[in-house]
């Protein structure tokens, strides 16, 4: 069932984006895809009504942590909850993400049910 909510998915891997998109679309969300941090900022700015962002960390041009920091200093993205979805598992990076305002950190490969549960909780659908 459609929730009417938009989620921005930022990942430089097309396969990874499709995996996340397929999972979220099946859960009723509309997905906007972005290919790196720069594209992510643009897509978030042009989709100010998006409810949440799912973002990779290691990406070319602007990485996920840089995008997160840029987003949190600028409206309207500052209010959007962000989940980092990455192969990175280093506590120091998690701490950076937490301090920059991320709401969650999932280490790839992700479990679809875990991602959907986290998204539902953060957008108020649970």
């Amino acid at each position: 069932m459609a929730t009417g909510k938009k989620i921005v998915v930022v990942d430089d891997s097309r396969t990874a984006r499709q995996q996340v998109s397929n999972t979220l679309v099946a859960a009723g969300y509309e997905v906007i895809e972005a290919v790196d941090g720069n594209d992510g900022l643009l897509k978030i700015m042009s989709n100010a009504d998006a409810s949440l962002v799912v973002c990779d960390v290691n990406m070319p041009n602007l990485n996920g942590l840089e995008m997160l920091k840029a987003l949190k200093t600028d409206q309207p993205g500052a209010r959007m909850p962000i989940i980092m979805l990455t192969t990175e598992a280093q506590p120091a990076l998690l701490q950076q993400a937490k301090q920059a305002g991320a709401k969650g950190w999932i280490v790839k490969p992700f479990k679809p049910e875990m991602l959907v549960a986290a998204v539902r909780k953060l957008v108020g659908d649970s």
Partner: protein
Amino acid sequence: MIVAASGALLASVGLPTTYVGTVPHRAARWAETLSIIGLGGKLRGSLVLSIPTQLVLRSHPTGGTGPEELGDWLAELANLLLGRIKSNLLSQGATIEMSTPLTLSATAFRFERFSGTPVVHEFDCEGETLHIVFEAIADPDLRLTSPRTGAAVESGEMVTF
């Protein structure tokens, strides 16, 4: 560590493998597309993945079939594998940085390193041959410790803030 992480990752994407052993780099039968990802920090080097196209096709999580989709998935597999290795190294006190992966396609590859002999790990997956190369130079002050649990978030786990 490399063999265990590789076997676990490949099994998780539907490619159960048997480890054959190391093979001379000149004897390795490289696939037509390789993915490469670099690493830096306390260990500097690269990880190379050679997986036959039919296995990349079979394991593609969203059913991709085109060359770009398969190349992208092969690159993501290199990213996932180095992520696992990075977590293992972190639990032993070594921090590394990861580059973004790339893929190369050619009719033939010759793998060389600047000094020494590359270590090429060979795996069998239902009669198909896969090769994984992990080459790295360690900082002189690097000392690996006994593995510690809880040093890194495990694959598939989530932390909420």
